[in-house]
């Protein structure tokens, strides 16, 4: 078996692990009577009492992360370069970053409520990567062959990971608040985190991702200047990177603007995340531009 085939096998294995994690984490929203009994309803955040299913979810997620990491490393070894040459590799790296950001956070905090909202997009990303985006391992086209690729893409991927978890937290918050509004008496609502907790969580992650995204855009401009002779040319990819940047800046402003409730602020953040996804899928597939050589 070649390294590239090993890599693909590892990706499939991670998909299975992610599928299990998805189901395990979804139980948080089903019914957690033990939580109500054991956990303190007034301070759900400070006293995490995890059900066995959720514990399994975390273990399997760590396994999925290790498998994805190994898949990226073997892929990189197969092509003898950083595994960031085409959409398949970007998708895997993005999935890895999102999952890693979530799991690292889970070491210090208790993000059970948003776990499923992170694992589902990660699963979808990896699934799309192997089905639609798969590209044979190969070296880079000359325009991608630059040290700035590493700098620019690694920053973008790290920011993407943080934004993914932030989006997961926003969706969790919107869903929980929507259930609360409907005066649902589902037992799990009693222990669900409050809006302000999830709002702060989302903000922290976005505030972490935003400067890194800023840096990625700057590094991209420096690279574009080196490769094409202009630092900014309104290429669709560049344009959408700026649109995302502006959307997240709007999120940061909305959060400090009086009279903007967290749910509206979070929707702006989710719009920002949607622009990131469109930049990755929509622009690469639908719009021709200098970046389209990234290859599907």
């Amino acid at each position, binding site marked *: 078996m070649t390294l590239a085939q090993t890599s693909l096998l590892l990706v499939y294995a991670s998909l299975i692990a992610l599928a299990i994690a998805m189901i395990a984490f979804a139980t948080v929203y089903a019914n957690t009577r033990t939580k109500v009994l054991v956990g303190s309803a007034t301070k759900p955040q400070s006293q995490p009492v995890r059900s066995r299913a959720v514990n399994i979810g975390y273990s399997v997620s760590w396994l999925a992360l290790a498998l994805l990491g190994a898949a990226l490393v073997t892929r990189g070894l197969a092509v003898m370069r950083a595994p960031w040459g085409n959409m398949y590799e970007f998708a895997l790296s993005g999935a890895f970053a999102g999952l890693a950001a979530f799991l690292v956070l889970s070491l210090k905090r208790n993000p059970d409520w948003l776990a499923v909202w992170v694992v589902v997009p990660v699963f979808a990303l990896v699934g799309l990567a192997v089905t639609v985006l798969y590209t044979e391992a190969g070296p880079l086209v000359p325009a991608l062959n630059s040290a700035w690729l590493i700098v620019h893409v690694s920053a973008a991927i790290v920011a993407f990971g943080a934004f993914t978890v932030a989006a997961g937290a926003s969706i969790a918050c919107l869903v929980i608040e929507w259930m609360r509004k409907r005066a649902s008496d589902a037992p799990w609502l009693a222990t669900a985190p409050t809006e302000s907790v999830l709002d702060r969580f989302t903000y922290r992650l976005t505030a972490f991702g935003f400067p890194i995204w800023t840096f990625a855009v700057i590094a991209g401009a420096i690279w574009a200047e080196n490769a094409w002779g202009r630092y900014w*040319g309104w290429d669709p990819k560049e344009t959408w990177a700026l649109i995302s940047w502006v959307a997240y800046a709007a999120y940061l402003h909305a959060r400090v603007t009086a009279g903007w409730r967290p749910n509206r602020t979070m929707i702006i953040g989710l719009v920002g995340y949607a622009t990131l996804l469109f930049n990755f899928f929509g622009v690469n597939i639908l719009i021709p531009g200098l970046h389209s050589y990234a290859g599907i």
Partner: protein
Amino acid sequence: MSPDPKKSRANEAPPIGFIGSTRWAWRQLTSMRTALILLLLLALAAIPGSLFPQRSAGVSAVNQYLEDNPNLGRVLDALGMFDVFGSIWFTAIYLLLLISVIGCVVPRLRAHLDSLRSAPPPVPADLSRLADYQQLTTKASAADVVTTAEAWFRKHHWRLATKAAKSGTGLSAEKGYARETGNLLFHASLIVIVVGVAVGALWGYRGQVLVREGTGFSNTLVAYDEFSAGRLFDAKNLPPFGFELEDFEAEFEREGTQKGSPRQFTASALTRSEPGANWQRETLEVNHPLEFSGTKIFLTGHGYAPVLTVTDPAGHVQFSDSVIFLPRDGNFTSIGVVKIPDAPQQVGLEGIFLPSAVVDEERGPISVFPAPDSPALFLVAWQGDLGVDSGEPQNVYQLRTEDMKRLGVTSLLPGDVWSLPQLGHVRFEGVDRFISLQIAHEPGRQLVLVASIAALIGLLFGLFVPRRRIWLKVTNDTQKKTVVEVAGLSRQGYAGLSSEIAEMLGEVRRVK
């Protein structure tokens, strides 16, 4: 990091009178809410710029779009959809945003400078209502407690104000001014970035030059195939460098699904900074531009230039040179023309060059690989009026054949000679390469880079430095003991504040 003081006032109804309403409009424009809406509008306005072809990126795609969608295209064109980033509405949004940023930076800068010069606010009357409120009693004297606390604050670079009153001593300490400094640096840098971009757009230029192996050019306007410059550009400022292409090599992937993908381009060239200077040998690669006094030369593309010799029936050489054939697809199926206006009767050749030619049953001759593995040239010869004497500018890559007579068609391999009684002999000598160079000067780019880095640094401080205050009230109680009250405040909900308070109190407790 105080909340925007204009925020509440911005919602007021507009007052009567010119000055009143101007002031009201100004407050509206510089409010956070407006900034937020303008930011969202800017994002929205940029979207069509990525969906429709833009003139700035190349007119041909726009013309193609207009041809394919004539009606919709005309409407879109009238709306500026093919020139979004230069359109009135896009410009309006970012200029409003720029004014808004200036309008918010200037007063905030003034307020921040004031706060840097003045003492932290005095101790509130009732500390116990604040977060992190703590009280402790100690046998140490009030003066010792105050000195110890002051020393701790000084050591950790807090800004301090001490106020003795009848009922005891109040201590106000504040830290984290760098948050607002960073925030201001960030917003001010955005202004500078816009200025830098404007400088580049006004004084900069860019152009494209195609160079065949064995030929060169000196950097003057006539050398350019395409050229565009800002309004304030002066052709006298073109640096007078010279460039000659010796050799160009391209490597392509030969195996697997990515077969045909480019792998490595290398051009070796002779350059000199001005006429009369010494020639220097340089290697030009993608991502590795050459530079002459701020003007950069980038390798952006390449193609083939078949070499042809045309002799008339009497044996005189009419033409002998390489000719640029523009690539049409990823396998470098290339088309080009040769115009020989000096022949007894004007002659034109139209050709298709295929670097790796195969004859496909259905599609006819096509190229299957970008490298010149089995080059072939297909030619059509024309005789008659080329139209070059009419004075109209002509496209050098197109032949106008309306007034010409077709003499024949042939296919040639390198070394082949095509003999035509009316024309003479056409010999396909072989094939050279040409490269396309992008030559660009963007004067504001260092400014933009510096401002971007400043913005990033400002952002880090603005987002991650928490602004916080600690107040201390030291009083003597009836039993001659010293009572210390402490409270803290951080608008950003800084979690580390309580441990800072604890650390400071630890020092105080140790005082005997």
